[in-house]
């Protein structure tokens, strides 16, 4: 059974019964307790449950069965893996910018555990994550609100006051032909401006969206210093990006501690 399936079963079980023991899950799923603990740990990091001695209980703060109800589990696992890589690519004391997007939001949840970060963002949800983290500084851009993020000339003017160590942009398409693309023109121009102020530019994109293209072009692939995606990326893109001298992080999650 794949980890993904196990996690789904654990979640279903917990939503129904509110608490479960490791031994019970281990016999139910026919895997070792170590594996179960690993799964539970993952779910705890996601905020789904709280681990107790010998088991776990459903997170009481949770109103909905799951935080990111808009995406299905498979995507969620992939995004969690990517966000873990982002976490390791940011060091304490960095000045970073996270653009809006679901993966960056997950990364933000992890980055609150860093120290002395200065985070610039145009995403209200990301800003909210950092609001309860006194060890880091958050700067929220102002501008025209579209769904839960701000764009437009106001946001760009706002942003130009800063210089960044590391810009982390989440995009909707990466392809050999059209380069890096996003879903709205205001997002594209925001990212283009942000790129001018950053030392290092990381592009975050799900492996599935490689080869696909969105409508608005941000720039060629060469603007990226690092590309962060997940392990299902096709071999042709691995070859291609390595030849372009771009650091490619595929967020393999395989080692069991």
């Amino acid at each position, binding site marked *: *059974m*794949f*980890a993904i399936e196990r996690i789904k079963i654990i979640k279903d079980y917990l939503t129904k019964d509110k608490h479960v023991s490791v031994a019970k899950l281990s016999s139910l799923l*026919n*895997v*070792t307790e170590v594996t179960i603990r690993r799964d539970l740990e993952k779910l705890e990091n996601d905020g789904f449950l709280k681990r107790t001695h010998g088991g776990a209980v459903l997170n009481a703060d949770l109103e909905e069965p799951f935080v990111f109800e808009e995406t299905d589990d498979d995507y969620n696992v992939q995004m969690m893996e990517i966000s*873990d*890589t982002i976490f*390791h*690519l940011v*060091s304490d004391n960095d000045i970073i910018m996270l653009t809006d997007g679901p993966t960056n939001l997950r990364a933000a949840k992890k980055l609150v555990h860093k120290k002395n970060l200065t985070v610039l963002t145009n995403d209200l949800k990301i800003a909210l994550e950092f609001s309860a983290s006194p060890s880091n500084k958050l700067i929220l851009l102002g501008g025209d609100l579209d769904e839960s993020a701000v764009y437009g000339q106001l946001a760009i003017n706002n942003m130009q006051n800063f210089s960044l160590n590391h810009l982390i942009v989440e995009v909707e398409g990466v392809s050999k032909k059209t380069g890096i693309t996003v879903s709205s023109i205001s997002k594209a121009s925001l990212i283009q401006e942000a790129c001018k102020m950053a030392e290092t530019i990381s592009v975050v994109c799900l492996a599935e969206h490689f080869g696909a293209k969105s409508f608005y072009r941000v720039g060629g692939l060469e603007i990226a*210093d*690092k590309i962060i995606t997940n*392990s*299902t990326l096709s*071999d*042709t893109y*691995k*070859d291609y990006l*390595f*030849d*372009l*001298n*771009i*650091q*490619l*992080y*595929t*967020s*393999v*999650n*395989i*080692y*069991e*501690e």
Partner: protein
Amino acid sequence: MSSELLRLENVNFQLDNFHLSNINIDLHANEIHVIMGENGSGKSLLMQIISGLVIPDSGAIYIRNEQVRKKTLSPDMFDDVIYIRQDVTMLTQLSIAENLFFNKMPYKNKLFRSIDYDKLNYMCQCLIEDLDLPVSVFDRVETLGFAQRQILEFCRAYISDASIVILDEPSSALTQSERDLLYRIVKKIKAKGTGIFYITHCLEDVSLIGDRVTVIKNGSIVGTRSVADCPQEEIIKMLSGRYIKTRYPKIVIKKGKNILSVRNLHFSDKLKNINLDLNEGDILGITGLAGSGRTLLANCLFGAVDGVEGEIFLNGTPIKIDSPNKAICNGIALIPENRLTDSLFACLDVSNNVAVSSLKRFANFSLINTTYLEQVVADYIEKLNIPHNLHNNIMEYTGGNQQKAIFAKWIMSRAKIFILDEPTRGLDIASKIDIYNSINDLIKKKAGVIFISSDIEEILGFCDRVAVLANRTCVCNMPIKDITIEKIIEFSTGQEQ
């Protein structure tokens, strides 16, 4: 200018992933032409082409201005070329004299081929006196050490009639006094009017005996210079070439506590006084020339060889690792250099090859739960992008996928210390990237990695610290930010001692 013996024009040759492209090189009589280049740059392949062991795909070879056309491999064609390889090819049960003159025995009677031993021994004695060798005619080869056997190989080149001599890394295994002897022999060979190709990693060789030097990198020639007007810095520059380190997906992890430390490790006369430290989340790169003892060091740490002296501490506790089993039980994993002979079980399918180091996990009262085993293996091979068919024989996969399966095997065993010996050599780029990223996953989760590689770019681009092995010991051990590619080349070629 002395007469030209050999000339190669626009020679191309393709071998799997590697190709020699547009090789132009020549050799004159009375000349020592030194060939340099890192491991795997194509030096030996080029020499095989010159000696006729390999027929190039295109291009022309001229010997004394006459084009050589080879359609098939036949030994007659090699009369003009003698190729002395790194490995010694001697008949150990025979005497030195018999070995040296094997191809030109003096006969008492040509018809019956009865050997004239008196004459043979006399000829050999003359040779020994001529070259002042520290051996006797009647010694059998099996009583000699490796270096002495190698010296005898050079004598074969001396007594042969070949006008072109190829010496493949002759000096790498020799001590200083043996080296002096080698230089003497090489100079005598040269004085006969012979042209010599001399492959080496040692910059000292170049300045002492070289007439011209050619540097090869990635299958093409960087340049040929006359030694007299080429300072060493220029050779180092040619060797390091264009250098890219940003494309390796490096992550920087906060280092944890010390998990492995090695103090004063000795192994017979091959390794001495080695000190290493490895922390959680660390990638320690180890590099050095072929034969500098990198693989041996890996084997010492894994308990795969007997007679290791010195202290090894795991998590601060002293431990004696005397067998691979003990190493595995203590969370040490080794991915050997040669996956075909040392890693894979050619008769087993993928799932068993991956699970073989963690069978305990799947055992239930000494019965293996195959369903569970296959589920877990499927999970692993999916994450490493290995094609999904558990019951294919492992040998049907490409090299990259085999190597990833070996990786999966050790990751599954949940080791804490991973010793990787040339993990990416000869792999396609996609597999390399998968391997780099799984190493990232290991260090994220607090494992420690010892990364042995001869690719200096890779070491500089991916490791946290680098140790260089040369002269049987560790000549430098420093953080990556303090070292450059030129420095590593200097250290490993023995210039800074």
